[in-house]
């Protein structure tokens, strides 16, 4: 009763105003992104995961060679194989959604930090070490990229040497098992994206029956949000955490000292998704859509991506490692410039590109 009275009263008070102009929907609401999604999935995401799978298999092979003959040359070859596998992984971090998270593969592949206490205990034990025993029994802190990295490089205080590895057969066994598990995870990841029932097809079919997303534009927003997420992670996490704390133990790839390349490849992940291709700007891409709406904006995004990559690489242009740069006053400016360049890109994507897609 009281509600009814309120309704009547308010109708009397307010009445119906003349019709207001409706807010114009963003151009993305009516744009057909079918080809954009198709090309982004099958020209960028799936080939990146294919590289990851292939390189992980090569890493597993190189580690087996190292175990059979632990020489410095074989150790170096295994390290190079790790670095090569790291490239597609870091270039995939702009699309950390779908099977990589749904199947728990992100922690399995890239858990950080390494659980060194437990790892030492496992190595000192008599536990069976195979890829399947690692997969079945050990947590993500005991497997994946950084565990393998730690065993291949050792710490700064105690670098790994081939002669030491030769004297520690358990470490070699562990390396074989962990790189086998990494290869298996990479295969699972790629397999989940391909095929008729794969996530790739469902992602590209967003907005239609069988698609992952309710609307096509949600998938496009997903692509874009994946990019802003990795920009945020690199600028405000991966770089900021060790830099602010002046603590090298917070560096992600602290054993291989590969962090600068990791960060740059994260930004290349942004580049290949935005360009819808791994070989320059594709005709069916986020870039092409943005260019159609605002040519200057598209040019700004493209140049900000390149500027961010250059700014990251500039930190180590004189050969200084990120590890020491974080506490080198002379490097303060270049580190902060890199952060600023990434944040500028992130702001453009969030404030200028996203509103073209969703309101």
């Amino acid at each position, binding site marked *: 009763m009281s509600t009814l009275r309120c309704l009547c009263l308010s109708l009397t008070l307010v009445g119906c105003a003349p019709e207001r102009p409706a807010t114009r929907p963003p151009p993305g609401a009516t744009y057909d992104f079918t080809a954009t999604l198709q090309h982004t999935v099958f020209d960028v995401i799936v080939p990146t995961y294919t590289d990851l799978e292939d390189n992980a298999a090569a890493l597993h092979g190189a580690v087996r060679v190292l175990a059979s003959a632990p020489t410095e040359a074989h150790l170096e070859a295994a390290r190079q194989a790790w670095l090569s596998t790291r490239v597609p992984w870091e270039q995939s971090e702009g699309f950390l959604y779908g099977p990589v*998270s749904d199947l728990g593969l992100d922690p399995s592949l890239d858990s950080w*930090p390494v659980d060194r206490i437990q790892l030492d*205990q496992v190595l000192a034990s008599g536990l069976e070490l195979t890829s399947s025993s690692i997969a079945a029994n*050990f947590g993500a*802190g005991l497997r994946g990229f950084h565990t393998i990295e730690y065993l291949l490089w050792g710490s700064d205080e105690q670098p790994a040497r081939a002669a030491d590895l030769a004297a520690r057969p358990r470490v070699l066994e562990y390396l074989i098992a962990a790189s086998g598990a990494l290869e298996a995870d990479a295969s699972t990841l790629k397999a989940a994206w391909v095929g008729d029932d794969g996530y790739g097809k469902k992602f590209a079919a967003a907005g239609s029956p069988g698609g*992952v997303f309710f*609307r096509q534009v*949600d998938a496009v927003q997903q692509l874009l949000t994946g990019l802003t997420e990795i920009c945020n992670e690199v600028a405000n996490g991966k770089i900021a955490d060790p830099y602010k704390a002046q*603590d090298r133990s917070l560096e992600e790839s602290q054993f291989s000292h590969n962090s600068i390349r990791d960060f740059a490849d994260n930004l290349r992940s942004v580049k290949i998704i935005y360009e819808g291709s791994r070989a320059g700007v594709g005709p069916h891409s986020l870039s092409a859509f943005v260019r159609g709406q605002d040519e200057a904006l598209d040019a700004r995004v493209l140049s900000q991506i390149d500027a961010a990559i250059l700014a990251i690489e500039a930190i180590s242009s004189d050969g200084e490692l990120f590890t020491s740069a974080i506490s080198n006053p002379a490097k303060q400016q270049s580190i902060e410039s890199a952060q600023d360049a990434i944040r500028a890109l992130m702001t453009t994507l969030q404030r200028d590109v996203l509103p073209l897609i969703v*309101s």
Partner: protein
Amino acid sequence: MSGRRWWLLVSALVSACTGERGDDELVQQGGTFTVNDATAYSYMSPAPAIEDNPALLERHLNGDRLYGLERVASPARVPGTGGLGPLYVGRSCVSCHQRDGRTKPTLFTSGGSGFDFSTFLVFMKNINGEFFPDYGRVLHDHAIFGAQPEGRLKVEYTEACDEFPTEEHERYCLITPRYWITDWYTTPPPENELAISVRVPLRHVGLGLMMAVDQGELRALAATQYPEFGITPRLQWIQERGVWEIGVGGHKAQHSDLTVELGFSSNLGITNHRFPDNVARGQPQITVDEGLEISDAEMADVDFYLQSLGVPARRNAGDPVVRRGRELFQQAGCHLCHAPTLHTSRTPPRLIDGTPMPMLADQTIHMYSDLLLHDMGPALGDQFTQFQASGDEWRTAPLWGIGLQQVVNGHTYFLHDGRARNLLEAIMWHREEEGAVSYEIFRHLPKADRDALMAFVNSL
């Protein structure tokens, strides 16, 4: 009616005049906490008021970091990352709440306990309601190297199928779990004295708003009976801190806070000020006293993070099928328990460290739950009482964000132990709900109408 609500009503009427469909379709489910995101990140987005305030955002992001950090065994080489175990269920909050949602249950991927962590809790107590002396309040089915898990959960499902009594004779199947525990680390509790309840994680959508709900409204809802639907909701009264409070969190509304300290302690093995004792304390296999492993400030930051998460806006609310589904949802009486609209209290709620959260106060929200206990019958019951809740009683699950679970977590397992493999099965498990009137109405709907009702729920 408060001045603000009066204004909202006037605004809604203006909107109706201009043909806009905003409040009419209850699109802004989380009030000012609503976020326009239907992606895999939709549960993770901070509320706009947080995102626009650098200081609040920084606190939110610190809470986010602590929430997602995968813990390792102490003494950790990387400061602030240790404390895991020695017994645990997950290695971080994200183990169970991937992207603030519900990680795909290892019940289905591993047949019970997972290899790295488990995505469920097994509540354990004896028939007198007491914990077993050599075990925790939940089964710790993982352990760091050198310790033994308390046991491992196994599950088997039996499937039974039936047809809808409508023209299409559409077939549906439900699976019933059977749980048992293997690999006990010491003498197992006598089988006839052991009561367990398996629970999958809750989605962390809109937790701050949920905790801030006006408790007067809940009392009023609890006092309203619907004899024609056979529904007799009950308030959950709980005692966790020495005083009786209304419980709102958890599958049986058995908590009056977001269990941040309890979760870190019981699920990750990380001791804190409120739960300083290791979960394994007293067990013959644990001898080391590690002291407190996380600070009060960090606990409060995680609480802040959870309370400041946004709520995804509804999708396709204006779609004719969805609108039809909304009508059917009401006609079937689903809304009597899955209450569409609640309000948060005018008094700002506080974090566990006492920080007031004024942005959560005085909001109109649409979580589609009355947060009350309802008798769902013995088929769903677990014979596990918690405070006022009997084995057969469960808190009405909030539905906001439910349609995005597939996008966020890649699966559609629902209900307290994830036994419903999709939304249809979840609805059909309401078969023994008190009265079962809504269930019968749904069951007799033509397929197109059932689909419309589910399209509505998926739009939430």
